[in-house]
Structures are given as structure tokens and as C-alpha cells.
């Protein structure tokens, strides 16, 4: 019954390429190195979130607390660095963010595993808890006093462009590293395949001797770790820490990851798909921007794309069957 076998990732990639070509023809700014680099610079934070989230979705869970967790990480890390460690450096900052982030993720895993609470309820709880704590302790005040190493942007590739130069910054490299690491764990280790197995059929995995607690701890802990890194990168890009800078990002990222082939049922999804999902929404948004469409229409169009994409991926189930299955005819 499967037609052309591209897979979700193939279809997404084709759509993105097509969109880029259309935008390249209709605008003279889209297909420039500068614009494409900016797109990557701007989306690297979302992409880091997405590769973390796809792990949780594959394991059959869901997490909506990761974006506020990232805000908490920003505050905790900045406060520790500035008040107690005299500023620190890149390596120290990243490691500390990872540690605090995965700790927050492990809280989710612990509640889900130990008390058998559904992941969406747990993370709605921690979403509110983390954000509430953040607002109470910061009083809603931003931190502008960030370490020097975080304040100055780190250019990686600098190409001459029509206006000034096109530059790719550090967050893109971090995103690539996180994606490769996640992809390696998911596809090249037995543990990663066991996560797919657990998401596909928890009971079968349990009976095969998969340690469920470890799977939960890794999935939510890894998302926490990614969220920590993403938080640090976001603070680096905007050169300040604002308590409500990231809240509200969780649903668009969730939608992008689902667009990339993950399902809320578990067992499906890939890092490539998650990245392409984020990229598709970003290209659309960027294109609309360049075409001069009002920003108010963005959300409407993004919502529309998500609904159409999900409906298309379900078409097999909706259409009547065309032929009697082969096996019955034998």
C-alpha cells in the first residue's frame, strides 16, 4: 500500500526545497547566504530544543516544561557564575547548564516513573511550578549583567556578502553537535533502539527486560540537558536573561517535531525529522516576512500547515482500501 517510499523526512525535505525555490524566485533576498545563515542562527535554539524533545516523543511521552526549564537554567547558571564563580568560561557554562537542565528533566522522569503519572500532567505541573518559582525568586527582573565570554558573539564562518558579510555563529555548531550526539544514541546504540522499542510497545519492552526507569530518566534527562544548552545559547544570542523570553515556545516546537514524523503515541520520529520540522516552519515564517505579509498572519498560516501536514500523513487510513490485500488472495 505504500507508494513512493520517501519517508516523512524525504517529503519534508522536498517541501522545504520547493518552498526555497519559490521564495528564491519571488524575492531577491531569500536565497542569499546572509539570509540562510541568519535563518540557521535564529533557529539553532529551537532546533536544540527539538532534538531533545524528539527523544521524549519516541519514548512515548510528552514534555511541555522544557522551555521554562531552560529559563530556570539561564537564571540559575547566570546567578551561580556571576555571584559565586567570578564569571567562569564557555566550557564551565555549558557543563553547568547541562547539569542543571538534566536535573530539572530528571524531576519530570522521577514523577512520571515513581508515581505513575501521565507525562502530560506531570509536565503541566512542573511547567507551572518552574515558571512560578522563577517569577517569585526573580520578581520578573531581567539579568543584563552577563559574563564577557557569553556577551560577545563567536563567529565561526564569515563570508563576504552583498551588504557587509554573512556570518555563522557558535549556536549553529552547538546545534550540530547536539543533533549528531542525539542521532548517534538513537540509531547507533542498542540503548537508543530500546527507547524506540519502549515507545512502540511499553509492555513488550518491559517483558524483554528493558529497564523502564532508565528509559524515562534518559529521555527526560536528555531533553533537560538539551534545554539547558538551548537556554544558554538563547542568552548568548540576546545577551541578556529575561524570565519570560522562552515561555510559549514549547507548543510551536512540539508541533514542529510532530511535523517531523514523531507521534504522541511513541515509537516514531527521528532527529532529522525534528530538525526539518523546525526548518519548515522557519522557512515559511521567513518567507512570509520577506513577502511583506503581516506578522499577525504567521500563526494562522503555521497552524494551517500543521493541520494539512498531519492530515496528509493520515491519508492512508482515511481513504478506502483500493485492493484486496495480497495475502488473502494466495
Amino acid at each position: 500500500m505504500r507508494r513512493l517510499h520517501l519517508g516523512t523526512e524525504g517529503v519534508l525535505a522536498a517541501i522545504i526545497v520547493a518552498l526555497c525555490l519559490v521564495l528564491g524566485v519571488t524575492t531577491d533576498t531569500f536565497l542569499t547566504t546572509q539570509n540562510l545563515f541568519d535563518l540557521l542562527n535564529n533557529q539553532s535554539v529551537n532546533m536544540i530544543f527539538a532534538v531533545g524533545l524528539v527523544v521524549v516523543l519516541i519514548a512515548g511521552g510528552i514534555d511541555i516544561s522544557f522551555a521554562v526549564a531552560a529559563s530556570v537554567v539561564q537564571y540559575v547558571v547566570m546567578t551561580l557564575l556571576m555571584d559565586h564563580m567570578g564569571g567562569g568560561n564557555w566550557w564551565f557554562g555549558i557543563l553547568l547548564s547541562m547539569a542543571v537542565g538534566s536535573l530539572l528533566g530528571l524531576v519530570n522522569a522521577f514523577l512520571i516513573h515513581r508515581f505513575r503519572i501521565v507525562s502530560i500532567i506531570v509536565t503541566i505541573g512542573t511547567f507551572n511550578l518552574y515558571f512560578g518559582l522563577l517569577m517569585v525568586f526573580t520578581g520578573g527582573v531581567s539579568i543584563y549583567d552577563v559574563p564577557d565570554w557569553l556577551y560577545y558573539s563567536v563567529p565561526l564562518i564569515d563570508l563576504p556578502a552583498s551588504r557587509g558579510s554573512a556570518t555563522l555563529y557558535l549556536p549553529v555548531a552547538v546545534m550540530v553537535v547536539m543533533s549528531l550526539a542525539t542521532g548517534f544514541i538513537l540509531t547507533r546504540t542498542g540503548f537508543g533502539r530500546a527507547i524506540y522499542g519502549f515507545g512502540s510497545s511499553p509492555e513488550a519492552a518491559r517483558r524483554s527486560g528493558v529497564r523502564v526507569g532508565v528509559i524515562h530518566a534518559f529521555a527526560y534527562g536528555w531533553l533537560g540537558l538539551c534545554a539547558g544548552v538551548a537556554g544558554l545559547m538563547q542568552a548568548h544570542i540576546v545577551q541578556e536573561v529575561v524570565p519570560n523570553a522562552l515561555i510559549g515556545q514549547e507548543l510551536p516546537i512540539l508541533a514542529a517535531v510532530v511535523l517531523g514524523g514523531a507521534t504522541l503515541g511513541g515509537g516514531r520520529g527521528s532527529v532529522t525529522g525534528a530538525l526539518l520540522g523546525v526548518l519548515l516552519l522557519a522557512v515559511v515564517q521567513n518567507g512570509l516576512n520577506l513577502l511583506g505579509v503581516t506578522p499577525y498572519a504567521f500563526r494562522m498560516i503555521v497552524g494551517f500547515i500543521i493541520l494539512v501536514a498531519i492530515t496528509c500523513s493520515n491519508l492512508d487510513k482515511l481513504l478506502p482500501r483500493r485492493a484486496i490485500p495480497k495475502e488473502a488472495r494466495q
Partner: protein
Amino acid sequence: MDDIALRAERVSKVFGQSRVLDDVSFELRRGEVLCLAGENGCGKSTLIKILNGVYTPEAGATFSFGNADAVSRITPHDARALGIHVIWQDLALFPHLSVAENIVFDDYVASPFRPLSRRAARHQAREVIERLGVPLDPDTRVEDLSIARRQLVAICRVLRAGARIVFMDEPTASLTRNEVQTLLEITRSLSAQGISIVFVSHRLSEVLAVCQRVTVLRNGTLVGTYSTEGMTQTRLSQLMTGRELTLTPRQAACTGEPVLELRNLSRTGEFEEVSLTLHRGEILGLTGLLGAGRTELAHVLFGMNRPTGGELLKNGKPLTLRSNRDAIRNGIAYVSEDRLHLGLVQNQSINMNTAVTVLDELEKPRGFLSPRRLRELTARWIQRLGTKVSDAELAVSSLSGGNQQRIVLAKWLATQPDVLILDCPTVGVDVGAKAGIFEIIRQLADEGMSIILISDEAGEIWMNSDRVVVLKAGRISRELTPNATTEASLEEIINA
């Protein structure tokens, strides 16, 4: 004696107040196919779980394997080390992973951090597949396979894990005749490789065909272990139930007026140009291989799908069904195949499950549900169908398979249908309960109800139908009366 693979003695198990296993002995020879038989609730699954290390038996039990020393219990770790594996009825596979990954999944658990290669997994899987000689593609996702193929994957998986003793729990319950034959052949070839197999099945003909010996349990005690040589189905069901079951082929000739007429009814891709007439008081057997269009036809007759061609007449008048509510209103009832999931709301009470189809009626005249009338209705049907119910307020999941099937029947009979479609009503129901269900069906037909009985068991179709229609690849291939044929020849026609 080194040809004994596993011997268990004095095995008992107590759950709370009830003794579900009482001093049972069990012996399995190397390379033999043994059947573990008994009605639901006789202690079969408890025994399997003890032998597999899931449950701990009461003190006093001994287990020995070949020449090794006897132990007093089997831990899950022992079970694995000894190569004892169970293929549960639900198979416990991973639908989103490929066949190869399912087969090598135990490696993932055993060494989670060893980097892996897809090619190696595919190669290892192919080795096992070839050893078993089955048509499986290692790259297909398990969710795209039929149940029969999935079962083969499960078998490959335990083979790869080095199984020496394999328990198969109801392996044939959802397979068609041909698929069952394949499975039985595979079972034989495994036993030829020295693997011992314990087969659990309600289908006695299969048991007798494939097993060398049969161990019968009844109410937690051992009835005995018998050679299948010279054993008959009748004798085996007597041993299992402890009573005589007599059921003779139905001899009624149908002369009633037509109730439901199908004229060239088609639904693209499912069945084509099906014409048949159902008379009052008739039991029409509808059979054919799984996927031949039986269930699909039933769905159209029950208004769940629309036909793409042809027409349907009820009592001589054209009938268009827009939904199954239409069908119910027109006196058509359908008892689905998968009663555990589709037929009953398991955690709701027996009362509510029985009344769910007629809640509208019970709300008359004032629009409020009358609990008294609901209870009366349930009580009437429970009594009428001889269901064993201690308290109708209990969840329906507290009933045995046979009694659950009766509640599904009751729920549809409460709509007072004149056409009743039964889709495989005896799947997963044990011998004793099967006979009870057919008694009810026959009685309903005698009272004038028209019944379409869908089943792929030639025996029960032959025994209980006035007329048999055989579907093949979506078309009627034969129509015959059981009187004019034998059970064996009907079976041949179905599988031809």
C-alpha cells in the same frame, strides 16, 4: 534419563483464598510437542508463569532439567539461562521496529552501549529466518505484517535467543486455516531440531494434529497426561470439562420467508457482487479465509460502511443504511469479532454493558434513565442466556470469556433484532462455553430470528448452519447445505 527437558513436581499456587494449582506434576521431553489443555481458569497460565519464573510456587515444589540437580523454584534469570521462552498470545513485539530489529531486540537490552550496525542485525535476523525457512523480509516494519507473519517474527526471536523450551499461548487463535497449517509445520520442524514445545490451544483438532502428548488440567488439578495416539476430540473435551458434551448437526430445513436480500452488493476493494437471501429462522453460515471479505460484508450489512454498488432489501423493501444506528433501528444487530475491545466496555458494569444499546428505550417516557427498568432488563437477559453472574453491578471484566460473550449477545438481543450477525463468536472461548453459545444461537433461530454466523472453523459452521456460503477473495465461491456434505469436504472447499 536425559531425554527429559523439564520435570516439575508437586507444584501448587495459592492466590489469597483460592488454590489455583494443586499438586500438579508436569513433564516435558526433549524435542516433543506437548499440549497443555484445559478450560479457562483451570490453571494453565499460572503453571506457565511458574515454569517461566514469573510466579513463585508454594514451598515443596521441585523442578529438574535433564541431569542437573533439582531446584525448588525457577527464577526469571534461570528461565532465560535454560532457554525457557513463552510466546504470549499478544506476541509482545515492537510494531514500529523492523522485523530484523525485533528479532535481535534482546541484544539491545543485554548490551545497550555496544555500537551497532544495521547490516549486522539484518544479517543475524536473516540467519534465523532462513533456519526457520519462512518468508520474512528483515526490513519490513512489524506493523505492516499480518498476525500470522508477526507470529513468525516472535518465533524467530525466541530461536535467536537460544530457546530450548518454548511455550506457545493460543498461537492459532487469530490465524486462518492455511496459516495454522504453516505454524503446525514450523512447530514440527522446531521439535525435529530438539526444541521442546508446549502448545496451548482451544482448538482441539490442532492439538491432536500436532502434539504427541497432552496434559490436561481441570480446576487447578492434574487430570492426566495422555498420548494423542487414539485420542478423539470428544474424549479430550470430556477430560477437560469433566462432563459429556453432545451436540448434533442441525437438521432444520428453512422454509421461512426472506428477511434480508442482498442483490449484487459490492464495496470496492472488499467484496464484489454478493447476492444472497436470508430467510426467517435460518442460520446462514458465512465462511472463507480471513480477508475474504466476511467481516467487511458484515460491516456493510450493519451500516458501518456504505456499499459502492448493488442493493439491500429488508422484508422485500429496499433499505439504505446511513449508519449503524439505522441498522439497529431496522432490526439488524452485529456482534463484533473482537468482543474484548469492541464489544464490551470492560471496566463498566454488567448492567450498563447489557443496556447500552437500548438506553434510549429505557429513558422513555420522561428522558431520565430508570435504574429499576435497567436492572430488570439485565436480569431478564442474564437468566435467559444462562449467564453466571454474581452481581450485575460488577465490572464486566470480572466475567470469564464465555460469560462475557453472553453479555455481548444479551446487549444486542435487547435491541430485539430480527437479523443477528455473529462474527466469530467463539474465538478464545473454551469447549464447554462454546457448546453453550451454540445452544443459545440455535434456540434463537428456532424462535424465528435470522442469523448470519461468520466463522472460519469448518466444524462449527458445518454443525450449526442450515446453509453455508463460502467467500473467496471477495466473491461467493460456493453455496451448499451441510446435510449434503461432510465437515472434511467443507474444510477443503474453504481452503481450496
